[in-house]
């Protein structure tokens, strides 16, 4: 079993699904030598008080994030397009709850 030296342990993002929740939610990150150890340590660091019933760990390096500097061009144009929300349609009564 090849365990990298401590200084080279990669960073992992931890996602936990709570008892009530349907989806895994990001709850933090940790360092671990490999995926199996990351799961173990995530259990100890993030689910000590019965927070979860399922854990995902993902190498932080595998996540491609949007650049905060691009915030204006990515997100601002959506702010004034209220017609993109379905609030202008009358829903027929027999459709029921949507």
């Amino acid at each position, binding site marked *: *079993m*090849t365990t990298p030296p*401590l200084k080279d*342990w990669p960073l992992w993002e931890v996602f936990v699904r709570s008892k009530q929740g349907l989806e895994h939610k990001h709850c933090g990150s940790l360092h671990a*030598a490999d995926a199996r150890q990351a799961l*173990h*340590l995530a259990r*100890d660091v993030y689910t000590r008080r019965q927070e979860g019933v399922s854990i995902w760990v993902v190498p932080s390096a595998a996540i491609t994030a949007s650049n905060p500097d691009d915030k204006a061009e990515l997100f601002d144009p959506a702010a004034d397009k209220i017609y993109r929300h379905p609030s202008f349609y009358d829903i027929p009564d027999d459709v029921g709850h949507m």
Partner: protein
Amino acid sequence: MTAPTDYLLQLADTALVLAQRNAEWCGHGPVLEEDVAMANLALDLIGQARLLYQHAATCIGGAASEDSLAYFRDAAEYRCLTLVELPNHGPRSGGAFSQPDYATTIVRNFFHAALMVTLWTELQQSSDAQLAGIAARARKEACYHLHHCGDWLVRFGDGTEESHARAQAAVDHLLPYTEEFWVPSPAELAAVSNGSAPHPATLRAAWDGDVNATLTAATLRRPVQRGYVSQGKFGLHSEHLSYLLAEMQCVARAHPEGVW
């Protein structure tokens, strides 16, 4: 059928003393994540010890309580296994200074957890219903401890030259103390005779299987055992227990009516 009080105390003392040893790493662990993991392991053991002391205190009756049993008995009254009271480092001579050694901690906890997984499994069938209930809960914790420590043992053994050497030294140092597991104490024999516990020798095959498989995966050698049997569960302890108890008990003894 209630388990003999001395048997409950043997289980409780072993859990509490190991918890105290493991807690020495709190804030000093090799990495933050493992520091938290080892503290969790200690807290699991304290939880087990509390349930066992509460059960024992009810059996003893009178003024006995979990606190009186944990904090107001001296080393000679403790019935913990010698393995769990040894320091978190290897043997040393005279006043030589020793750094705490994580391999020693991991090997100790691995040997102990492998025992407790089989013992708690059997104790689920105890004629003592309360002990059976404690066993059902503690077994899950012991399984996790065995996984966690077994995982580290393989990483150490099958790791670098240094980690392998330290893991092997810890195995060589600690394995002889596991002989004590299998030699029954009077409390264990009394528990066997009223159906509240298995004979310890019957657990050995399962323990050997678990330990040998992990040592092989870790590329570690199992040393030959030579017949020395430590006697912690008979109340004859190493020189280390009284210092551990002094640290653990001093606050409760300085403030005997204290509430926290």
